[in-house]
């Protein structure tokens, strides 16, 4: 961490938002609690020149792990030429957290994708619908307990049996 601006931002995250920083392969990641992430992002944007939130994504560590999810935010400062990653641990199978749309407008679709793919609910999101999967899809595909899936081959002897349990769009 040789960059001063980055050092300041990380120190701020540690002092005011209880962040735990670690560096891996030259990239700094800070672990921040779910209830503090929106304020932390606001501070990064207004106080440390992180103008762009490039990405939000999540990692699922499986239904038995605790915390089950990590939500990963990528911040980019185009004036200081630095990047910072914030990670938010989330527990439970139906986690909720606050939306980022009030701070960064482009969080809208990124959070919709997280809801669609991981089933993470964002409180206060203006438009939390599925985005990539069909609107009546069941389950959240990028969770680790969601099977990769395949289509069963129908033969004449088991045609009806498989036909009955085939997934269909709701009428």
């Amino acid at each position, binding site marked *: 961490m040789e960059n001063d601006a980055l050092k300041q931002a990380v120190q701020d995250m540690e002092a005011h938002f209880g962040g735990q920083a670690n560096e891996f392969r030259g990239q700094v990641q800070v672990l921040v609690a779910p209830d503090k992430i929106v304020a932390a992002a606001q501070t990064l944007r207004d106080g440390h020149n992180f103008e762009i939130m490039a990405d939000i994504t999540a990692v699922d560590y499986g239904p038995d792990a605790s915390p089950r999810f990590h939500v*990963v935010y990528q911040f980019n400062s185009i004036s200081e030429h630095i990047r910072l990653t914030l990670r938010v641990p989330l527990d439970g199978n139906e986690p909720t957290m606050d939306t980022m749309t009030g701070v960064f407008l482009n969080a809208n679709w990124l959070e919709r994708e997280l809801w669609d793919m991981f089933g993470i609910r964002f409180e206060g999101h203006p438009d939390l619908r599925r985005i990539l999967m069909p609107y009546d899809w069941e389950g959240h595909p990028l969770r680790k307990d969601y099977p990769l899936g395949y289509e069963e081959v129908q033969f004449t002897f088991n045609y009806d049996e498989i036909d009955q349990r085939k997934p269909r769009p709701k009428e």
Partner: protein
Amino acid sequence: MAMLERVETTLDELKHLVSEQAFEGDTLLLNMGPQHPSTHGVLRLLLELDGEIIVNCIPDIGFLHTGIEKNMEAKTYAKAEVMTDRLDYLNTMGNNLAYCLAVEKLAELDVPERAQVVRVIFAELQRIASHLVWLGTQALDLAAMSVFLYCFREREYILDIMEMCSGQRMMTTYIRPGGLWRDVPVEFEDAVRKFIAYMPGRIQQYEDLLTKNPIFIDRVRGIGKMTREQALAWGATGSTARASGIDYDIRKVQPYSGYEQYDFDVPTHTDGDVYARYLCRIEEMRQSVKIIDQAINRLPMGPFCSNNRKFVPPPRSELSRSMEAVIHHFKLWTEGYDVPKGSVYSVVESPRGELGVMLESDGGPKPYRIKWRTPSFSHIQLLSWIAKGHYVADLVAIIGSVDIVLGDTDR
């Protein structure tokens, strides 16, 4: 009857996105796409129209969703790379590069100099090829038919160079973790030199057709304006952001593959309209030619991929001589290689903007989680804000100007 009910539910779901007048029948709801020539793929736009003016534009994506991220989690690192070509099919080399940079960063692999230079040449050739498709389709959307034909003529030449090296025109998988798949053939250098000799003249031809063409200018100037602040808040990157006065290019500020050794400019513009984006991309093509020119002149001899046999498979010729090579070959192509535990985010400047790969490894031979931060995704989201208040005919110009690829968006 069932059909009618379904339409009502859909509208109900979108109630918060359209204005009050839509329910009183004062404005018209119109579907554009998912099969429409000017949406550049399977993109559906739900438009709320007041006469010919767009009140609200609600993009609907996901028609091309193929679960690439989920699929990559189930494949070894070597096999997962094949899926990266299918993301942004106009920037296949760039996707390969982004993926390889992430894997190399996690595994701490060194890449030899020759491979670095060839990577830069291909990344820039791919940028020109992608911009040519953008220019052709943008002009076609605005009814300038002939530009499209000229652009595709030159693009075909680039695809020929790719086929010469990788055996494939588009789905190349040529850049591999640790270097390249094969060394470039002897004809490669001549072909590239021939290309950079005639390309600047061809770019001038496109400019002659469009840049001062009053019909073209009428359609694009002042359309789809985006200020610097808006571009930042809406997550615009790449030339879409540079046209709004954001002087930011990942090749300059966070160089990868040795981009710091090349001399090139980053074109920016302050107008932020469709015309500014057009000017930026045209200039970017010239700069790419300049980079290729420098790269081909410095192309060093030497190995084309890393010698680290724990990650890079041995060349075919070694298999008949060395037992160790056979073991490595077998191991690498069956169970793959283990990558150290950790998480990295690596970015490259794709023709469309910031292409990021968040790669997390649990120490095993398969990516635990890989997320593609694709520029098209944020640029389609931006359509819903940028299109407001414009005519439907101008929307066509705006969609073309943000340069979206639906494979990139839906993943």
